[in-house]
């Protein structure tokens, strides 16, 4: 009990103090103090008027009373005074003093022989009237009249009144004023308090609602911007502040064209939407200083009753990329199927060409006994024939046919890889080892071709050694990496950049996947090339250097065979970045 009582004090007291402080500082306090003063002054003013008019009234009444009573006493007591009938004078005075306001009556004689007080009657504290020796004058109003008998002034009658009644009434009036002040102020304070607490509650509810709406507004992932019918910005959320790079305080009251400076194309859209009252949607593209392209989607929603517009801006780069990837997937799948089907049909004629070449070569040679036998039978000198064939370049043509068949066969093999599903060759591989091997192979490959000296390219390796082994077809993934590294090397060779050429290869483990990133600091490529880079037979290399199949094969190996992901990002003059994501266990990846 004690504990709860004690604990309630510290928590309650600051609350009260708080409330008081808030109350003291607020409008309510000043209003209430002002109202108290005004009502008090008014009540005092009216009270003073009552008071003074009541006083005047009393004075008049008392004056009139003393006039009247003194006249009557002077008239009635003339005879008895003449005859010195004291008893009768006393009776007269007594009968006149029934009015409680009369305090005392004094009758004096004026005759030379018998001067002085004749009768003095005074009202006692208990209200009774009795004879007294004299009357000490302490009355505010009194009246003295001559008593005349047959033309002779024989005495005076002085009537005194008390102002006790007046004082009592004045006190009553005073009390009433006080009571009125208290009652009126208490009632008005109570009423104001009630009204104020009600309005304060409404205000708090309003504030709460405003905070809630502001919170909702700010929590939106989209940038929101509101404006009035004159296209003057009235609101913007935090996301919009971040995107546009200025604050609400700076933008409020500014024309929308001055706020949406990074999207000048948006202004006519807003005007159109405001004019037609129809919601509008539009895609915008923006390239920043670093050459990174961002896609935005703008929605303009006119408010009801033409009270302005709300603009919603979203960064839809991710969505655009996913859409692009889906289109790419579709395209690649159909192209892949077509290519694989075609390749299959081409294999047989290629086989005939290749076999025929081998047979021709062998059947022309002089080392095969059967050749000699047939030549002898026909009388042909094989040595002479060979000389003839060499002179007429028949062997060169034959060699050309063989080479062409081999080249076609390589293309066909690449094309067939599109449709290959060779999970049976999957085995757990150490990614760092695999990448290292691919680098060694591509270095050798290049040295052999003498197209580019790999020694000038710095190869930076950043391996995450904690990644688990990945189930994959080792040679295929090596082929993917070699294709990409070769492309990077070729790009670096073409680059006239002053930067030392570098290829950075990093591996990194993530949830269920391993990421292999190959980044070069070459010239990069534009958006049109980037979008088509994985298409079969798309190449930027001179005719005969590349078939345009390398990256499309890489695409199918990663996407189709390994259920992984391959992406490319590129920025002109900065470089290109390939990202390969391989599932650690492709069998666990659901087929789409």
């Amino acid at each position, binding site marked *: 009990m004690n504990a709860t009582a004690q604990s309630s004090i510290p928590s309650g007291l600051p609350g009260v103090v708080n409330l008081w402080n808030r109350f003291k500082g607020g409008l309510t306090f000043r209003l209430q103090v002002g109202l108290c003063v005004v009502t008090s002054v008014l009540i005092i003013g009216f009270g003073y008027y009552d008071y003074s008019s009541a006083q005047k009234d009393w004075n008049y009444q008392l004056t009139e009373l003393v006039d009247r009573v003194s006249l009557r006493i002077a008239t009635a007591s003339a005879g008895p005074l003449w005859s010195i009938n004291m008893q009768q004078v006393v009776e007269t005075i007594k009968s006149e003093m029934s009015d409680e306001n009369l305090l005392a009556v004094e009758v004096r004689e004026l005759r030379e022989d018998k001067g002085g007080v004749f009768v003095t009657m005074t009202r006692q504290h208990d209200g009774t009237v009795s004879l007294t020796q004299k009357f000490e004058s302490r009355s505010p109003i009194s009246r003295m009249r001559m008593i005349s008998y047959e033309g002779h002034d024989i005495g005076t009658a002085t009537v005194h009144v008390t102002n006790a009644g007046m004082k009592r009434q004045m006190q009553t009036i005073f009390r009433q004023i006080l009571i009125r002040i208290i009652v009126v102020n208490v009632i008005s304070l109570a009423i104001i308090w009630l009204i104020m607490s009600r309005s304060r509650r409404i205000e708090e509810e309003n504030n709460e609602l405003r905070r809630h709406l502001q919170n909702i507004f700010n929590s939106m992932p989209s940038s929101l911007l509101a404006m009035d019918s004159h296209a003057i910005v009235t609101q913007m959320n935090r996301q919009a502040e971040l995107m546009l790079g200025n604050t609400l305080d700076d933008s409020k009251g500014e024309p929308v064209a001055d706020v949406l400076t990074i999207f000048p194309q948006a202004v006519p859209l807003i005007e159109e939407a405001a004019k037609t009252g129809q919601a509008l949607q539009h895609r915008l593209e923006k390239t920043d200083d670093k050459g990174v392209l961002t896609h935005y989607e703008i929605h303009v929603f006119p408010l009801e009753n033409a009270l302005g517009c709300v603009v919603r801006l979203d960064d839809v780069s991710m969505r655009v990329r996913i859409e692009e990837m889906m289109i790419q997937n579709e395209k690649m799948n159909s192209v892949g199927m077509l290519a694989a089907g075609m390749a299959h049909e081409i294999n047989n004629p290629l086989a005939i060409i290749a076999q025929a070449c081998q047979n021709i070569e062998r059947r022309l040679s002089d080392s095969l006994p059967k050749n000699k036998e047939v030549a002898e039978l026909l009388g042909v000198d094989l040595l002479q024939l060979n000389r003839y064939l060499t002179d007429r370049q028949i062997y060169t043509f034959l060699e050309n046919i063989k080479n062409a068949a081999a080249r076609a066969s390589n293309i066909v093999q690449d094309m067939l890889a599109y449709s290959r*599903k060779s999970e049976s060759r999957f085995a757990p591989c150490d990614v760092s080892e695999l990448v290292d091997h691919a680098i060694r192979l591509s270095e050798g490959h290049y040295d052999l071709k003498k197209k580019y000296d790999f020694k000038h390219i710095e190869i930076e390796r950043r391996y995450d050694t904690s990644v688990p082994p990945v189930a994959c077809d080792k040679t295929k993934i090596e082929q993917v990496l070699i294709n990409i590294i070769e492309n990077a090397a070729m790009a670096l060779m073409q680059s006239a950049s002053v930067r030392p050429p570098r290829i950075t290869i990093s591996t990194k483990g993530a949830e269920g996947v391993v990421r292999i990133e190959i980044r070069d600091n070459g010239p990069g490529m534009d958006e049109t090339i980037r979008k088509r880079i994985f298409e079969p037979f798309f190449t930027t290399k001179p005719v005969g250097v590349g078939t345009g199949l390398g990256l499309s094969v890489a695409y199918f190996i990663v996407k189709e065979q390994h259920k992984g992901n391959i992406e490319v990002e590129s920025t002109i003059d900065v470089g290109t970045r390939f990202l390969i994501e391989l599932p650690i266990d492709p069998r666990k990846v659901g087929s789409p």
Partner: protein
Amino acid sequence: MIRVLHVDDEPDILHGVKAYLEDEGMEVSTAGSAEEALAMVQSSEQFDAIIFDLRLPGMSGDEAVLHLHSRYPEMKYFICTGSMDFDATPNMKSAGLSQDRVFYKPLKDMSKLAAAIHRDVKKCGTDS
């Protein structure tokens, strides 16, 4: 002399391989389909080795291999196919079809096929 049967639905391929293997001193017969090949084997023709294409009209090459191996396990079976994604199944492997008996068209060097036949058939000959 080694007797070989080559089964393919493309006559010019049969012609090319036959010419080469004959130059190698083998006796080569050809068949345009698996059914024709089965008929030839069953009509008591003796072969040391049979080369099958996979995609054939009617019965496929791998089916024919399995079918024949159950009856003629002493014969050596080879595959010469245009499909790049052929991998010998465990069943096929039990029929003696190891990966070194699978060849892909186009045969850029037919001497490898000839050498494989020589190797496998000779080994068998010395064994028995």
